[in-house]
């Protein structure tokens, strides 16, 4: 069974098979619930909808606000990554992304231009583990573009765990669970945007996520040569790499690590993936492929 819906400005495609143990009706319910995961996370984490939990929280400065786990968890992961990378990866980057034209709601076409100066960083974001609250110490716009989709994929994968096999593919970031129709591992290709043969590498995957950050989709319409991954320290998009894929046990992890490594680049970016014990594949701007972790 295969279905596709739009969420988070991308197409989410879910393919699942029931195997012998499960009825088609039960499978259908699992798929519906898996799509619901995307709906919940989008409602909580969208930067493009003024009524999302995230944008409501961004209007409260200096006040601890209780937030749902749909926002708390991907924000916590993003903050851990921000600390780990000393701010090269930063969830406070929303305003900067808005200014580069990444501010259009994909369904309504409405654009968001927030009235904040963009000087705040992740250090101005405080989460309370005990109270499950968020407190922003300066006006800022949160951006969970590198964790929320991964988190939604992980929640969807959990709903599909009882299936014999499934793939949740959210516009090129995916989790593959169980096995395919032939009861083999899933074959996942890593796209090569530059070459005619299309695929950089094909991987055999089961119960793991593959996420790719790249500069070849989501280009800035405002600033030439820029794309949706921006370093807060330079205010610019790194262009040393074209694509960075990470394989991890969770999509939120693969998503955040591929984005953070892309932002850092070079040997340091590679070390970020290596040190976490993950596998990765990088395509550099001079068309070289770097493999990490014995792919």
């Amino acid at each position, binding site marked *: 069974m295969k279905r596709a819906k739009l969420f988070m400005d991308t197409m989410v495609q879910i393919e699942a098979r029931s195997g012998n143990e499960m009825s088609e009706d039960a499978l259908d319910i699992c798929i519906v619930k898996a799509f619901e995961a995307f*709906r919940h996370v989008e409602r909580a984490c969208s930067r493009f909808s003024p009524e999302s939990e995230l944008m409501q929280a961004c209007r409260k400065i200096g006040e601890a606000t209780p937030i749902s786990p749909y926002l708390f968890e991907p924000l916590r992961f993003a903050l851990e990554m921000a600390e780990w990378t000393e701010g090269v990866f930063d969830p406070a980057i929303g305003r900067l992304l808005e*200014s580069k034209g990444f501010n259009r709601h994909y369904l309504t076409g409405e654009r968001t231009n927030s*009235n904040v100066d963009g000087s705040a960083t992740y250090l101005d974001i405080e989460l309370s583990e005990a109270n499950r609250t968020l407190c922003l110490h300066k006006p800022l716009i949160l951006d969970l573009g590198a964790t929320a989709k991964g988190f939604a994929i992980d929640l969807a994968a959990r709903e599909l765990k009882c299936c014999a096999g499934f793939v949740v593919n959210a516009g090129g970031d995916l989790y593959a669970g169980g096995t395919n129709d032939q009861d083999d591992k899933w074959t996942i290709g890593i796209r090569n945007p530059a070459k005619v043969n299309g695929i950089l590498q094909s991987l055999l995957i089961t119960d793991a996520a593959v996420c790719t950050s790249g500069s070849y989709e989501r280009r800035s319409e405002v600033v030439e040569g820029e794309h949706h991954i921006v370093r807060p320290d330079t205010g610019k998009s790194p262009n040393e790499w074209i694509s960075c894929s990470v394989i991890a046990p969770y999509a939120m992890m693969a998503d955040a690590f591929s984005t953070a490594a892309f932002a850092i680049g070079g040997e340091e970016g590679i070390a970020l993936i290596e040190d976490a014990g993950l596998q990765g594949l990088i395509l550099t701007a001079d068309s070289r492929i770097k493999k990490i972790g014995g792919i």
Partner: protein
Amino acid sequence: MAKMKKKWVVLCSTAIAAVYTAGYWATESDKSNIPVNAVYSSPSATSSTSGSGTAQVLDSQSQVSSKYNDGTYVGMGSNRRGTIQVSVAIENDRITDVEISDFAMHYSIDDVVGMPDEVLQIQSANVENVSGATYSTRAFSDAVQDALDQALRA
């Protein structure tokens, strides 16, 4: 190294558990048709002053009430590979769901989003899914707009 990796894995597994143990999943899922987004205006009528920093965060009160009839509307759009069909569910002027309704019948979904032909050939051979930089939903915007036009109150 292994220890370091464990920290991130634990963060991910507790994140999933937090949604379930808090009871969020059960209670939230009981509410049917939670809106994805409000329909503030048609996609063609965008206003943008990027970088000016003067516009305010949009107020949710700015939505026009009863612009659309509730229901599910089929919209068609096309790109260089053919037509795209979507089913758009609307409730209280909000889009609650957008399903790509017939891709399985006529073409691979990857045709729709404009994947290179070479990728498609390889895919049909043995690659079941492709990981790549996240593509946007621009290919679907005409079809969504077509559905919204049909939902407009006369």
